[in-house]
């Protein structure tokens, strides 16, 4: 018996919340203090990579349509690439700061995947609304990893990046099919599932 899609969204919300808090802490203390313990450097990149890996079972088990499969698959690849690049930078195997652009790329791929696989309008249903708002949050939020590639030391940029993940977590936690408000707004969306 597979868990419902909203449960998976809540688990990923928890992952994004963890990512956000780790990045926020790193922004607050600065890179030098953060790097004082070697394991800490790998913490959020490996977490991002792991979230990309966990997106594969989502792709396999939640294939409602081809476009869902493509969306989840591209997501998985983008998150793994960003996580791997950040791990390479943390380890010192990669030197160019422009590898950080893979995170900006992951944001844009995720945004495209979210927006393209939602074929209904904003106010069709709660799920549609959340897909649109998540997609646009990632498009706007991509500015932070993009600037971070050129200004890695900026506290404002690092904090902004962290907060994008926290906001994403809030949106994902809001995904609830049986919500009393923003349930199925359009009459075309049919009855509530539960």
């Amino acid at each position: 018996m597979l868990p419902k899609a909203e449960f998976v969204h809540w688990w990923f919300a928890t992952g994004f919340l963890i990512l956000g808090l780790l990045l926020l802490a790193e922004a607050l203390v600065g890179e030098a203090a953060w790097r004082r313990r070697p394991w800490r450097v790998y913490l959020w990149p490996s977490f991002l990579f792991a979230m990309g890996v966990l997106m594969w079972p989502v792709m396999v088990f939640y294939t409602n349509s081809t476009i869902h499969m493509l969306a989840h698959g591209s997501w998985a690849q983008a998150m793994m690439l960003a996580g791997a690049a950040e791990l390479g930078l943390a380890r010192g195997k990669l030197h160019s700061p422009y590898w950080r652009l893979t995170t900006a790329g992951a944001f844009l791929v995720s945004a495209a995947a979210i927006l393209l696989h939602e074929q209904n309008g904003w106010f069709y249903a709660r799920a549609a609304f959340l897909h649109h708002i998540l997609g646009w949050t990632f498009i706007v939020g991509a500015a932070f990893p993009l600037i971070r590639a050129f200004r890695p030391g900026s506290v404002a940029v690092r904090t902004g990046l962290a907060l994008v993940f926290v906001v994403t977590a809030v949106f994902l936690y809001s995904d609830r099919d049986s919500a009393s408000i923003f349930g199925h707004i359009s009459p075309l969306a049919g009855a509530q599932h539960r």
Partner: protein
Amino acid sequence: MESHFGTEAVAHLRQRSLRATAVNLIGPLTMLAGVVWAFVQPYRLTFLHPHGQGFWWLFAEPPLYVILVGLVFAVSLAPALIHDLEEEEDAAEG
């Protein structure tokens, strides 16, 4: 001069304590957010009304996840991070 150095030292100490306090607050504030959420939307905690709920509904308790994340951060990450922050700033002071 003395008062200038004194003012600078106090300002530096305040800055340091602000950063340390901010890191210290991340965990408790996250836990608080989870607790407030649980009170605002108690129906999201299915263990409060477990009758007839399946495994996944009982396993998925989002407010508890938030509280747990805050707790783990506060207990396992924040203390070492604050320690390192203070050491880093002491080293920078020379």
